[in-house]
């Protein structure tokens, strides 16, 4: 066990966990930030996507000890009231079915749009391809990414 100081959603948090613990479980079990989801644990589904200094990463593959002073953003820290343009676009297109994959989808989309504010369809498909939606809401995800890009 070791102590780690993390900057999460603009706040500094201290946790005492095993150094190998993936950020995913630190968020979910120790910090009550359960918006970040467990789907596969092997970087194959995208459900656990968070931002490290604005870049989308799979938190299931990120040992807490590897994080050095980077700013972590989770779905809970994206906006105060769910009014980030990507969240708004998601609501406008009523994207979710079960909803389980959606925070990962949104986090991927936000990071992607920051890099590429004006994406083409194939670019969106490529960027979102790592996030599985078992319910098959892909068309609405794509439409919402486009709406967010235009806003």
């Amino acid at each position: 066990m070791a102590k780690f100081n993390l900057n999460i959603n603009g706040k500094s948090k201290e946790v005492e966990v095993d150094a190998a613990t993936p950020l995913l479980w630190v968020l979910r079990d120790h910090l009550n930030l359960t918006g970040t989801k467990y789907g596969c644990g092997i970087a194959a589904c995208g459900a656990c996507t968070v931002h490290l200094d604005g870049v989308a990463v799979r938190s299931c593959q990120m040992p807490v000890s590897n994080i050095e002073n980077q700013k972590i953003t989770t779905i809970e820290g994206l906006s105060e009231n769910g009014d980030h343009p990507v969240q708004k676009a998601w609501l406008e297109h009523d994207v979710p079915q079960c909803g389980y994959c959606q925070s990962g989808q949104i986090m991927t989309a936000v990071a992607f749009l920051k890099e590429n504010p004006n994406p083409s369809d194939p670019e969106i498909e490529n960027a979102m391809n790592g996030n599985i939606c078992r319910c098959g809401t892909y068309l609405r995800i794509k439409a919402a990414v486009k709406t967010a890009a235009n806003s």
Partner: protein
Amino acid sequence: MSIEKTSINRRSFLKVSALAGGGMVLSFSWLAGCKPTPKEVLSMPKEWFELNSYIKIGENGAVTLFSPNPEFGSNVKTSMPMILADELDIDWKNVFVEQADFYPERYDRQFTGGSQGIRQGWTPLRTAGATARMMLVNAAAQTWKVSASEITTGAGTIHHKSSNKKAGYGEMASLAATLPVPEEVKLKEIKDFKIIGTSKKNVDGLKIVTGQPLFSIDHKVDGMLYSSIVHPPAFGIKLKSFDASSVKSMQGIKDIFSVKVFSEDYERNFFDTATFPEMVAIVGNSTWEVLQAKKALKVEWENAPQSSFAMTDFGGNKSTGTIPAGLENSADHKAKMAEYTTKPGNILRRDGDPEAQFKKAAKVLERTYSAPFLAHNTMEPMNCFADVSGGKAVVYGPTQAPESIMGTLVQALGIPKENIQINLARMGGGFGRRAYSHHMVEAALISQKVNAPVKMVYTREDDMTSGVYRPTYSATYRAALDENNKLIAFHVKAGGIPETPIAPNRFPAGAIDHYLAEGWQIESNITIGAFRAPRSNFIASAEQSFLDELAEVMEKDPIAFRLELLDRAKTNPVGEKNDYNAARYAGVLELVREKSKWNSPLDNVHRGVSAYFCHNSYVAEVLDIVMKDNKPMVEKVYAAVDCGIVVNPDAATNMGEGAIVDGIGNAFFGELAFENGVPNKTNFDKYRMIRQAEAPKAIEVHFVDSKEDPTGLGEPFFPPVFAALANSLYKATGRRYYDQPFAPQLEMQNLKM
């Protein structure tokens, strides 16, 4: 106008006060995280008045509607309250929706599956809404001393025209809640619906996009421990022993023990499919710590001998279930299925004299189709929270069928059902998998043993390898043609491991004079269960692929050919037991033909058609493929559906889109195989799921304008997709695809997948 006797749903009208002595502790807002969010104008009222099990109204006019059925993504949590709200005659923006707990004394059918939520909830929910409205009207009549028949309502207000008296529902709610429940109520005319038939957004949308805890996997209480399980690595294997000391001293580990889901003399119910009734549980302080112990634990397994158990089926009939011994292989499955296709099966339906017709046929077309086992792979793995102590249990988890697991919990825990509260979590997907809810029993047993609240979570690997799969199937179709290329007889023989997929009285039965349907099944210890449109999801793909090829042999347009058959079934049906409506079936084919401009396709587009009827609804689909860089891409899918009245059109469209994507994904990639009882895939690195880039570029869903009562929607879009894809791939590549999944065959043709 229809008049409903309220007695059909009497138990929904029980008041909380009447239940006070019932021993059940009621807690509607049981989860802090699930508290309703005040919407727009209204703040939370000071007091709620309950009009019946579904409806409570605050003194300020706010309305809380309880959605009875578990939500797994089909959006019943929005559409069921919409039905209540319309008959109650309120403004949707003043509504809070809450998920009801499992509470059979108050709700009739808290089951999500078989696409029956809206169909079976339709009249009870309308009646509950209309009854509450009537009680509010009666309260106003009593207060104003006027006749109830002169009172009108609208958007949550009550109005008496001649005396010009007006009141909000909130003002009358306290009196209304004390009035007797009317014996009969009038339901609205369809034309007067204001909410039903309009698109309303998912009531949990904001919570989902902001990552609020909605799922049981997100749940946490003070003092909660975390648990992981270790189940046998193969079918046909059981636990022999485990060495607790190998992990007991590991950091954060509290306890290791085995749990047994069924006691010796327990009589199982239809949904009691627990693949591994005994497993090892590890309990500790955090998920990561129990996962480390799970890896390190030393366990010995042994071959399981054949076993049997007593069971009671749906109809209450008692029987004995048998689990064969052995470590099974997919190669053996294939060989056995091939053998069964050549042997006589059980005759399920015979019209005319098909054997004689086949003998005299000028030409016989025969084709065999197959599909593998599939894992459901719900995005949220199996998990459950349980708090069992002092002879009481609270179980909060993802289940489609709480009623079916209650008895299993009772026998496993030794706690009477009055002391077990099942609370319904939003599910991260279901697809049939969560009708089998033994994860709840496992969590409850673990909590009971450690005497603390516990959250048990399966890893993805546990989830994918613990059974309850879609069965593997095979179907052989034969058609006899005379010298004029006319269809004279039709024969289907289909089976699977361990069930036959045939619905013998569905189309094309009824459309052909000489018809034979046979079924067979092969026993297995690989457990299976309902998977989105069980059986239909395979037999539709085989039948609709065969009809496509048959139409080609007969030199007919595939839609025109199906319509000819349906015309025969409509005007002069063969046999009496046909369980589809040929006119509605033809209706969706005609609609999809029109909407897809079937007769004038775009250049470079390869299209296939397919249609199916199941879960009381009719769906026809046209799927367009274009070849891009040697890769078949699904450009567009057109779907026409007849599911009666559509409650929430945009949400219904979302369901249709999802089911079509799901079908394309499983047709291309879905497959689980076995070697010595071991599933060959354990996670999404090997188990290929459809992803964004493979999804169709566009999907159009068209609903038949209908005044019929609503029918199923979550499943019917799914079965036709497989053949629509196979038939369009044939057009694109010149090859027929008989065996799912298609991607490996396409790759062998040097196409990219």
